[in-house]
């Protein structure tokens, strides 16, 4: 009788000890997992406020190089013109019916400057919308309209008004890791 009681008690004690050990393992795993998500894995380094900061300095900057525009006749920009003024003038001209090919050199210069600012982590897209028309199609899309992505960042600003037209420029930063590598 005593042997049987001792065996039962031993099994109960062993079960209690096992439960305690299992609870300790679960608590340790939860604590380790919670603290393991530290600042290094907190999320993207840049935020939308960074996109707005980049856009703000970008619009104030000068073109920095001579650019030729082919409309209405050949015009050579000295490079002292600000990026914001150039974008506003281009948007106004495109809305007036100017062909987009006339601004090819200017667009290449602007896109190159934006890429130098954002570095290899992001691919920049520059979109310009006419503010009064509330259209979802941009007047200018450099290099093209980006596809939707939950990780993209964006900032917007108002461009100088030209001929009574107001435009809004949006800088979209597309994470470079999200882009698919297309074999050439």
């Amino acid at each position: 009788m005593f042997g049987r009681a001792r065996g039962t008690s031993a099994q109960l004690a062993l079960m209690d000890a096992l439960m305690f050990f299992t609870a300790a393992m679960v608590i340790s795993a939860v604590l380790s997992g919670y603290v393991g998500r530290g600042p290094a894995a907190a999320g993207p380094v840049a935020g939308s406020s960074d996109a707005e900061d980049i856009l703000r300095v970008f619009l104030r900057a000068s073109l920095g190089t001579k650019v030729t525009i082919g409309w209405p006749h050949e015009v050579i920009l000295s490079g002292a013109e600000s990026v914001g003024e150039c974008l506003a003038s281009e948007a106004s001209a495109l809305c007036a019916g100017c062909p987009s090919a006339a601004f090819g050199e200017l667009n290449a210069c602007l896109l190159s400057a934006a890429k130098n600012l954002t570095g290899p982590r992001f691919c920049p897209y520059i979109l310009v919308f006419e503010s009064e028309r509330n259209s979802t199609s941009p007047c200018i899309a450099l290099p093209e309209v980006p596809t939707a992505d939950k990780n993209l960042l964006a900032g917007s600003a108002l461009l100088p008004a030209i001929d009574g037209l107001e435009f809004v420029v949006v800088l979209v930063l597309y994470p470079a890791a999200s882009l698919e590598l297309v074999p050439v």
Partner: protein
Amino acid sequence: MKADEQAVAGFFEDLPVLALILAGVALLLATGAAVAGRLDAARAHDDLEALAHEFLLGIIVQVGNPENPHILPMLDRVLAVDIRDAPGGLSGYMMSMTLRHPSVQLLRTEATGVPPSSITGYDSALLNAVDDRGFVVILEVRVVVW
């Protein structure tokens, strides 16, 4: 050894129970120590990030025109800024100024103190300046502190 009828189940039967309990306690203590270490490191990193931000703000305020913030500073003045007034509590820092537009060019670097061995704080900012041609350029100022 004679089994003790007064005990739960005897000495040898109690050994696994004792081992499991000791292992559980040791596991909790080790996890607690590891978590405390990680939280300390995270707090130290946040403090360094705040110091880096304060350091960078000090540089930007120095080069700017507080009376009229819309007037852009000259590029020469930005490159000649004195950065000896780093926030207290730092072992060392590194600062760099890079031209981002119209060309990419490293213009100035400064470093002081023993090179970092573990945690560092980082901050960067873009700002406009006027070069000698009268063009508005874009500079990136980066600081790393430890």
